[in-house]
């Protein structure tokens, strides 16, 4: 993915995020925020047994966090908890600057360069941390 392509994906998902401020009656809510910055996002998850049937979100955050949430939601809907955790693991590998599975992350590869920006890695990871917590909670 070129820098220009990454930029476009991030900006598109920031300006028109997927499933932001959508109805979430009966969904499981989880909040995710960073201590060091002001990003603050609520994720709402609808489970069907072990499969993520839907996710919506609301809240306030920077362009990286919002776009990352949007992309994550697109990629995780329809996945089982195990598949979702696998995806999250690959995402962390990417933001840590390690080799990762590009086919699995799809659009989310736009954050490949973020491992070099100390401050912004936490922003990209933010929604993943939130959903990871929610999935582990669901599995309990």
């Amino acid at each position, binding site marked *: 993915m070129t820098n220009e392509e990454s*930029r476009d994906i*991030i*900006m598109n998902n*920031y300006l028109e995020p997927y499933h932001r401020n959508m109805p979430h009656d009966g969904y499981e809510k989880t909040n995710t925020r960073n201590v060091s*910055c*002001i*990003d603050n996002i609520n994720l709402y998850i609808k489970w069907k047994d072990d499969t993520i049937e839907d996710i919506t979100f609301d809240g*306030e*955050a*920077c*362009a*990286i966090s*919002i*776009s990352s949430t949007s992309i994550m939601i697109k990629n995780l809907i329809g996945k089982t908890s195990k598949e979702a955790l696998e995806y999250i693991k690959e995402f962390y590998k990417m933001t840590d600057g390690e080799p990762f599975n590009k086919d699995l992350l799809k659009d989310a590869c736009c954050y490949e360069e973020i491992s070099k920006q100390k*401050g*912004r890695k936490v*922003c990209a990871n933010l929604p993943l941390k939130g959903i990871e917590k929610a999935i582990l909670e669901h599995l309990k």
Partner: protein
Amino acid sequence: MNREDFPLLKEEIIYFDNSATSLKPKCVIDKMVDYYTNYPANAHRGDYDLSYKVDQEYEETRELVKDFIHARFLEEIIFTSGTTESLNMIVTGFFEELLEANDEVLITTSEHASNVLPWFRLANKKGIKVNYIPLDNNYYVTIDNLKKVITPKTKVISIAGITNVIGDIRPIKEICKLAHENNIFVILDGAQMVPHMKVDVEDLDVDFLAFSAHKMCGPTGVGVLYGKKELLEHLEPPILGGGMNESFDSPSEIYLKELPTRLEAGTRNIAGVIGFGETIKYLNKIGMERIHNYETDLRKYLIDKLLPLKHIDIINIESDSGIITFNVANVFSQDVAYYLNKYNVCVRAGNHCAKILKSSVGVNNTVRISLYFYNTYEEIDNLVELLSNYDKIVKEMI
């Protein structure tokens, strides 16, 4: 002004986060290195030359602070770790004992967390009421609004002299006058005021004052608690230990030293206090009035340049301090800070520790520029150029 005194300013960096903390001039750094290198003994302990010098230097800072804020007595100057500790000591050590259930304290919605949370805790513990002085359309405190909320139950007004988000300068002298006519104590949170303008505790007639050295070119971990002597006498020491006691033979025979030592248990931040003395000499040399006037002019220059930019929404157009808070249309404040950081411009994004401001101003997050005397017109020009191109901001914010 005085840029050559600051080692960091030799680098390509524009530092606009002075409300968070200030840069340190070389003389202050050198003073602390001198202590650590040449006389690193403890204070109030030894009978040898090195230790004597420590005492002298440490107590000289107290003299300097006393004159700097125009206190009457040396005993009124207590060294703490900063504004936060000073405010907590005042609330916990003095007012917790004094206040009764349903007594009222007045603060505002733009106070820093350190002037809110200690009161909230006291509210939970003793049933006191925390009430708010309404702010006017500019988010200012006015005497008229203060009059509206004073009741026979009001015992304390605790407010910042200059708030760290709006930067308004509160009419402290008038507030103290009205308060004292009604038997109300006034605590001044001077964290943003003392570094930027002359604060004269006698003239203002405040009962307590708290401020931090690190926001005024001094070291971190040092602050001041000022209190009128007759009040400080009743302030319960928050911690007990060495240095502050006369003798302790049994629980019923604890004898504490007089002020100010009584409130300074344990080994203090000696290097910091000594460095802080140098800081005050340094600021005195420049002159607080000059600092304040320069910052006011600089702010006005920045505001005049930002006002024509349609995509910039300034929250506090009016205000006489060096604090400018704004948002860029449809851009999250943190993204603006990231963008400016790419050009080595340091600004703060966020809610600036005044979380409840949201309820009055209606915005959660802002970008904040806070100026100090070493900032320049040129730096402002650079900033304005970076902010004037909206497309560039949006393009480069990620």
